[in-house]
């Protein structure tokens, strides 16, 4: 009798295992972000006992990128991974068209800011997204600026005294997204709409470059995160930074014993602000249809209203779906959080994403080089923008 029971149990487990689908999910979410993601995946496991998600933390974004590049080249990618737009363009053919696998309610839920097609295909969905906002010291800037002119007036008034550690603003050379935001706010773009011409050095591009160069004279220009400078006691009147840096910036201000608040960016021709953060993509090589369907289920689960709102509340990222951002949970949450409300308004008002050009990776590398030259006043804004345009033209 006992033997029969054991055989029955083994058979039952075997049948269960046969129906089990296992997928790998590579991500770069550390600290509280990783904990929250693990928590959500655990909830997914509870709701979907037939699917096992191997959540694999790859360390930093650059480590994730390098591992993905190597894995795709070796033909052994994960089932599901976080990735930036400019990585996606490197291996489009290896990805699955997600609109073939995601349910209608998920497909129709994204904010228009995240409508992005790669060569006409929907191969990624937004996941952990942040936006550039203005961090300011209320004791130095009583009313946050709403226009470029006001921004410049404040920055000039605060001035720059390196010996005392006082700066009107701060810029990070490795972060050209700030320049792209200024460029877009001035009505400019890197390339023309059909990508046939480089437009970054036209009148609007030059206006943005000259504005940034004027501000840079009163700015702390450092590759390190601005929160590091704040923590060391350096006074910065205001600076543009991602909403994902909220916790770090606030903690730094707390350590330094100074006030810090968040406002939407000052606007110019428009109120554009660049969206940052990664998307989710599903890989085809070495995956079965069941694994791809399981990955699509994970995506749909993560983008469900309750989970998206929870993820945003816990991590500081912004909700990426209409259902979540206008939903009761998020609206109730931001009603008592003016900073998060400012970030949400910024996303709705002017969020724009990366240029989905196949050579954007190389263009961004050039942008970093010339953005640094501009900030350090190595040449005139016109000469810098013309040189940048020539280099982009050579690779576009």
């Amino acid at each position, binding site marked *: 009798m006992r033997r029969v029971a054991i055989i029955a149990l083994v058979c039952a487990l075997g049948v269960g295992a046969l129906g089990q689908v296992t997928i790998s999910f590579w991500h770069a979410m550390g600290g509280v972000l990783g904990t929250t993601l693990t928590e959500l995946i655990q909830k997914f496991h509870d709701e979907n006992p037939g699917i096992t998600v191997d959540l694999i933390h790859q360390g930093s974004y650059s480590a994730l*990128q390098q591992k993905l590049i190597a894995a795709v080249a070796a033909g052994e990618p994960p089932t599901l991974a976080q990735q930036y737009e400019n990585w996606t363009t490197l291996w489009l053919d290896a990805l699955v068209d997600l609109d073939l696998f995601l349910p209608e309610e998920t497909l129709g839920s994204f904010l228009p800011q995240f409508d992005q097609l790669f060569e006409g295909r929907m191969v990624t969905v937004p996941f952990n997204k942040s936006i550039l906002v203005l961090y300011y010291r209320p004791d130095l800037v009583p009313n946050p600026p709403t226009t470029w002119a006001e921004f410049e007036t404040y920055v000039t008034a605060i001035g720059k005294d390196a010996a005392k550690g006082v700066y009107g603003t701060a810029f990070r050379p490795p972060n050209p997204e700030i320049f792209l935001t200024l460029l877009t706010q001035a009505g400019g773009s890197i390339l023309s709409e059909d990508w046939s011409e480089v437009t970054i050095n036209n009148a609007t591009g030059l206006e943005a470059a000259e504005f940034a160069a004027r501000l840079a004279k009163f700015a702390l220009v450092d590759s390190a995160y601005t929160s590091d400078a704040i923590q060391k006691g350096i006074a910065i009147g205001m600076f543009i930074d991602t909403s994902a840096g909220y916790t770090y910036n606030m903690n730094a201000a707390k350590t330094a014993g100074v006030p810090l608040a968040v406002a939407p960016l000052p606007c110019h021709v428009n109120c554009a602000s660049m969206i940052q953060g990664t998307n989710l993509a599903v890989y085809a090589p070495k995956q079965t249809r069941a694994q791809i369907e399981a990955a699509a289920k994970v995506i749909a689960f993560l983008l469900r209203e309750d989970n998206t709102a929870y993820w945003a509340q816990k991590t500081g990222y912004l909700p990426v779906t209409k259902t979540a951002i206008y939903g009761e949970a998020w609206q109730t949450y931001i009603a008592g959080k003016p900073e998060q409300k400012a970030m949400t308004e910024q996303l709705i008002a002017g969020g724009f994403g990366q240029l989905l050009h196949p050579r954007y990776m190389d263009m961004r590398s050039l942008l970093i080089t010339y953005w*640094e030259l501009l900030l350090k006043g190595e040449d005139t804004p016109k000469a810098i923008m013309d040189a940048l345009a020539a280099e982009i033209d*050579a690779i576009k």
Partner: protein
Amino acid sequence: MKLPTLRQGRRFWWDTLEAYVYLLPTLAVLGLFTFYPFVNAFIYSVYDIRTRTVAGSVVHATTDSTTWATTLARGRIPEELADALLKRGVARDDLWVRLRQADRWVIKDEASAQEYIIVREGEEIRVHLATTGWAMESVGWDNFARVFRDPDFAKALLNTTIYVAVSVPTTLLLALLLATLLNQAVRGKALFRLASFLPYITPIVAITMVWAWIYDRNYGLLNYFLGTVAGWFGAEFNLINWLNDPRWTKPALIIMSVWRFMGYQALILLAGMQGIDREYYEAARVDGAGPLAVWRKITVPMVTPQMFFLLIISLIGSFKIFEEVLILLQGPGPQKSALTVVYYVFTKAFDSGHYGLASAASVILFAVIFALSLFQLTVVQKRVHYER
């Protein structure tokens, strides 16, 4: 040359075979991790390599492009296609669409994992066997031309050359002085030797993390030390931003490199010094030579074989500087002031996915190192004194 006799010849072949068997594990490791990548770098350098779905042989063709396009756009398999593939033993239920564009679709057979790419050209649609993975397209010397046109590569080559030109002779000179000191009859010599060798055997990651702290602008030991020294002389000292000022990133790398390799090189030179026949020194003393003359005329010339070996090894090693840049500066440094050739290769391959371009850059680096090594072997070696 005297050829072995038949009997001796058999013995000769057995000995050779035995030697190769002993060498086999080493050859296997070298082959896999050194020679195979080395040869591949040359091959890849003339290709554009991307991850693509590549079409193979045609398995079906049709002119009913409108029906096919509409059906595939819905993520479904056209009847005609299902029938055609059924004849090849593919079950209809195993087929699914994974990629769809206006004129290109990819479907997969779940049972065999075989992919098919469907391409529309005008009214005609062709179904090909397909594979997704690395696709290599020959581009001739294009990758080399692009590397030479890239201002970043020129910058990387210049930065690396400056680093090599300063760090290699400085390390060697200081190592020679250190070896001379260690060669004296002093107490605690073993401890000094150990201390000077420690940086070489400590993992580079650990060393670099420590140096990142030493170089910190506000709290670093180096600025503290320099400030203190400047204070003794009543001079003003402006804190140096070692890792964020483009003027100081290369000196930062050079100082760390000199510190790391000086001890190792000193021990090699010390071994050479201790092998010098005492008779030379005694003869010099009899002739009335002073300590400096003895060092210049006997010690230094007699260790030139070791110096030559160190020169070649350190020159090759220095041209390949990478980990220090990656960990100490976490990037190419401000204004790419510390962008080195190997870091350039790394970013082209693993940040931008341009494997062909990266391979071309690595082949150029190989050519530079090879040419310099040849120069040393032919020209510099003539100045090396080998004891007969």
